[in-house]
């Protein structure tokens, strides 16, 4: 036998050498391909990317500042000068809508970051260690879930004062229950799987089991829940700012711009003041919801088999 043939015959892999998945496609590539097929999700992604772009570059997109008063031109409709018109004190609506996007998106992201972290930690502890810590954490979750969220957030804000950071914290502190339940359920299920039992028999440390085996399998549903969480957080921030308990003027937020339009006169005769921020909320939340739906289909563990 020639050396080449020897090599092909001897192509036994060493024990422990990782095998290549066929075609070199990992988990995420396959998921992305499935995501791409979801039409609505792709539309949502495009819209969201546009919005993020607008939010980041808000200050340079309009010739006007979002804060400068232009009293002679106040409460006037869309024109060459002010693309979406001006509000009651003459501030340019287009600039305020762009800047408001920054506020709403950042509150959404930070609040979800907080709630996901809390949810994963608490749900993980409850699901993995079980027993008394599980019961204790579930009791706490029940208490938090029983509170009407908006009511508690309003009370919290009344205590610490309204500001953008307090809004982020308040929303984050109240939204973790769904994630916690999700993670707990996943941990409970995975913990009873054979590969975990095997790992424990081998003497693998708890922390290693959690981080290397259980957590990677939990990421999918958590990402989906987090995506929908961002949508909910944006709606909550808008609601709080609308009630005057969130972001305070003059910093524009889509919610507090709608608050400024709360008189019947403005409502009827000056739609440019409230329709643009409202539509922006709807479009951004809608696109995030589409993306979440697409992610859910793409990361569905059943179709990964």
């Amino acid at each position, binding site marked *: 036998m020639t050396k080449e043939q020897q090599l092909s015959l001897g192509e036994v892999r060493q024990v422990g050498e990782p095998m290549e998945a066929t075609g070199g496609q990992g988990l995420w590539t396959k998921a992305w391909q499935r995501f791409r097929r979801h039409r609505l999700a792709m539309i949502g992604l495009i819209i969201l990317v546009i919005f993020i772009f607008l939010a980041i570059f808000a200050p340079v997109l309009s010739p006007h500042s979002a804060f400068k008063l232009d009293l002679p031109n106040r409460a006037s409709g869309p024109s060459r000068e002010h693309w979406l018109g001006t509000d009651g004190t003459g501030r340019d609506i287009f600039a305020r809508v762009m800047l408001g996007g920054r506020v709403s998106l950042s509150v959404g992201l930070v609040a979800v970051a907080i709630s996901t972290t809390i949810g994963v930690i608490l749900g993980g502890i409850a699901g993995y260690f079980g027993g008394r810590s599980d019961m204790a954490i579930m009791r706490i979750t029940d208490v938090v879930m029983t509170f009407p969220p908006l009511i*508690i957030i309003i*009370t919290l804000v009344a205590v610490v004062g309204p500001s953008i950071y307090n809004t982020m914290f308040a929303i984050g502190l109240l939204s973790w229950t769904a994630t916690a339940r999700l993670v707990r359920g996943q941990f409970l299920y995975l913990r009873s799987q054979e590969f975990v039992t095997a790992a424990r028999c081998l003497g693998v440390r708890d922390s290693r089991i959690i981080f290397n085996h259980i957590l990677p399998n939990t990421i999918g549903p958590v990402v989906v829940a987090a995506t929908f969480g961002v949508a909910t957080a944006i709606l909550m921030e808008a609601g709080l700012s609308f009630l005057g308990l969130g972001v305070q003027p003059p910093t524009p937020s889509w919610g507090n711009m709608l608050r400024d339009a709360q008189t*019947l006169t403005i409502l009827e005769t000056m739609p440019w003041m409230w329709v643009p921020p409202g539509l922006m909320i709807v479009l951004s939340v809608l696109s995030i919801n589409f993306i979440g739906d697409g992610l859910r289909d793409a990361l569905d563990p059943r179709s990964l088999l």
Partner: protein
Amino acid sequence: MTKYVLRRLLVSIPLLLGITIIIFILADAMPGDALTAMVTDEAPIAGEVLAERRSQLGLDKSLPVRYLIWVGQLLRGNMGYSFITSVPIAETVLRRIPPTLELMGVSLLISIIIGLVLGILSALKQYSVFDYLLTVLGFIGLSIPVFFLGMTLIYIFSLRLDWLPTSGMGTAAADFSLADNLRHLILPALSLAILRTAVFMRYTRASVLDVLGSDYLRTARAKGIKERLVVGRHALRNAMIPIITIIGLNLPVLFGGAVIIETIFQWPGIGLLYITAVNQRDHPMIMGLALVSSIVVLASNLLTDITYAFADPRIRYE
């Protein structure tokens, strides 16, 4: 069955206790107390007088003691007096609950009926144009902030078309008439209902789809049972079970929505009362309302669990 109900009731008690503790701690953290509300610049009171009055009222006792005093009073039905109006809170709250219940009840009813029907139809006709349309509409419904919807509805139906009134519960200075009340109820209830309908529609659709793929349905069809009965007698019954949970879980959110809607439409319910109390720093009112709404949510969760146990016998043996 009774054992299950008793167990759930027992579990609710520590829950209620936990809620009262959190509310009390939150309210205590708010700046000011009963006496600061009474002291104004025009009627300055010396510091020692204030301190003496405080110890008379028991305001200088420690947190746990004050908490227990509060709970003791609550059990006697005394929620204290409003800082602003000095009217007993229990009285004000009781007066304002019916409008909110009317609003929430009607919108919940509408959204359950329409949401369930559309969700079921959507699932049965999966992948049809009907289904696709409803899915997109459902998504849009989920994504509209409730205040924007309210404002848009006012704009279209009150200001432009002049069909419906813009605010309030009844025409001012007119005698109460059911027709008038209903006219005022339509827009606020619709604003809440549209959002909830979208949520229920999606969950119903998902649940029915889930059930439709079950093996026992395949067996039923193989046995030759008419499709109508397969769906009506087997599929729908099992699909309804998670729906009950979802409805129950949505009740706290309904409260939040009610707060916003009552503000826009000036609907005299406890939502509007709450916002006014927060803005006026009326601590006893805030505490009383937070407590009442949490109790209502707790009670409805209990009801949901009991209904769930009725519907799904497996739960009773857990």
